[in-house]
């Protein structure tokens, strides 16, 4: 998408800006048609997992498999964050020995994975969901309770 005049140089990076602009466009112009909330799945206890059940409101917008793949990857990432294993025990014991003061200096394993998750969600939004008029909200912004999927009205897309 080229613009005339001063924006003529925007060619190679144009596509990337297209994605960003499309997201900004959606947020600013498109009316929100609906919001779908993917709730937590507690069958395995209190670990953070989300239901992979495909909501009916998204049937017209996105492929079921695609969506389930996204949620499954998210679940795997959260499982990795909360995994009880050698490295997490080591981190815990070290923290205990230092009276937990290392939490003030060090970034915990969980926080590192959360950053990974944020990047993953942004990537998914850019590549898959934005072109379909959908927007995933990072669950951490909703207190890890829900995955909020915002459905935008169709009029700003597909022209």
């Amino acid at each position, binding site marked *: 998408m080229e613009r005339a005049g001063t924006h003529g140089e925007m060619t190679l990076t144009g596509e990337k800006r297209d994605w960003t602009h499309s997201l900004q466009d959606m947020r600013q112009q498109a009316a929100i048609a609906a919001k779908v909330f993917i709730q937590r799945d507690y069958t395995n206890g209190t670990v953070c997992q989300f239901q992979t059940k495909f909501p009916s409101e998204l049937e017209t917008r996105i492929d079921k498999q695609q969506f389930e793949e996204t949620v499954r990857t998210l679940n795997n990432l959260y499982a990795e964050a909360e995994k009880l294993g050698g490295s997490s025990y080591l981190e*815990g014991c070290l923290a205990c020995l230092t009276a937990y003061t290392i939490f003030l200096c060090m970034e915990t394993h969980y926080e590192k994975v959360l950053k990974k998750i944020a990047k993953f969600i942004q990537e998914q939004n850019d590549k898959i969901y934005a072109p379909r008029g959908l927007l995933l909200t990072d669950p951490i912004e909703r207190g890890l*309770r829900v995955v909020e999927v915002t459905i935008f009205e169709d009029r700003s897309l597909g022209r």
Partner: protein
Amino acid sequence: MKHCEYQQIDPQALSTPTPTLPPQHAVVQEEKKGETARRKWEVFPGKNRFYCDGRIIVAQQSGVLPLTLGLILVTTVLFFVFDCPFLLKHLTVFIPAIGGVLFVFVVISLLQTSFTDPGILPRATPDEAADIEKQIDNSGSSTYRPPPRTKEVMINQQVVKLKYCFTCKMFRPPRTSHCSLCDNCVERFDHHCPWVGNCVGKRNYRFFYTFIVSLSFLTVFIFGCVATHLALRAQGGRGLMFALQESPASAVELVICFFSVWSILGLSGFHTYLVASNLTTNEDIKGSWSGKSGTEDTGNPYSYNNIITNCCSVLCGPMPPSLIDRRGFMPVEESSQTVATEVELAAKNEINVCTQGTKDLLESASRSPCPQAGKPQTVSTSCPDSIDPADPAVTFNPDVTSDPVAVPSLKCGGRHHSHTTSPPDEPRQLHHHHNRHHKTRSARSSSKRAALHISNPAYNVSLSPPTSPGLGPSHGTGAEEHVRDSFATLH
């Protein structure tokens, strides 16, 4: 195509002045303009207090935390001053060393327990709450709201009932409980400890456990050392009274330690049992898994059935992050966009005209403001009447015109909306930043309401969530409360 549309809407759009920048930049821009963006802790709906710009969180009442700290400090200082020299001379240098290490552990873990977010769950956003309400209405057939609302889930092949929290407007995750003292839902809620002045939950349980264990070691250690000290002094037939006369501080320490050691040791033992069986105090007291309810197969579904795994998972597991994001900035643009995007474009244009009119009114105090969108009667009546150009609270607010939809959301943030009005109002705003209490709220309520209605009449339209009665702008504090609550749930 998209770009054309983008450019067309751009001049009329009510989004932030530089829409090409991501929201964070927009927030920073606002900061630079002189209006400091609010941090989320400033509009937190629970009854917590925050210090150091949101880094430290405590409960509303500090309870007996000063007493706890005081007792520990006094006892340890007396120990170091009066007993250590003697013991150093007669026994070993390790005694003060060990005492020092234990003391440091105790104080650090106590402060961490008190000042850490215990695992507070942020309240449901209005959209979430509406969605849940819809689901409940769909599943239940009655038109009235049947109490209590519960949802059953299967956890590890066991049925667990999740309760609905009316304050936080969500179904509580398993093991979560609502603390009435702090007015928050806390994950893996153990208990609210007055000695520590905070709830004990998922995030600070390990600090709490370290605190009571190290405190019991410290208490026993001091008790033992003081007893040894007195015994050594009383040697040679001089008697205990003589020893006590020589070192009266030791008597104080003995008394304190003697009375606290039983309770602290008992508490440590109890919590060691809880840790080993992966239970919380709350569950233990209620007897959730002890099988009293009658069914045979109630066991703790969260236990790993292995003491070591249970201990490791509770104490050495990964440290979950704080979900309330205290130091994050208020999503000004997001909330404004949420409000804006819910309104049709036509209404947006009308608002724009309206705010233009408002700006003119405030500037010249002569022109009549707005046309109608939303509730015309409120707009037309409240515009000219309630705005007093002389009132500093409602002085010309440049941000109102550029981003009118943002201002009401700023204003309505939690309990502190009264602080977030006009940026030109510098001295008062500075004052507010250091003062979380809504002292001026009542004074500003009328002006806030006026500004709110002028700036975004359409806001009134969109602000009536399905569960609440309509917003009546003329109904004084009712509207205010309603607005506050609606935005409180944003967090």
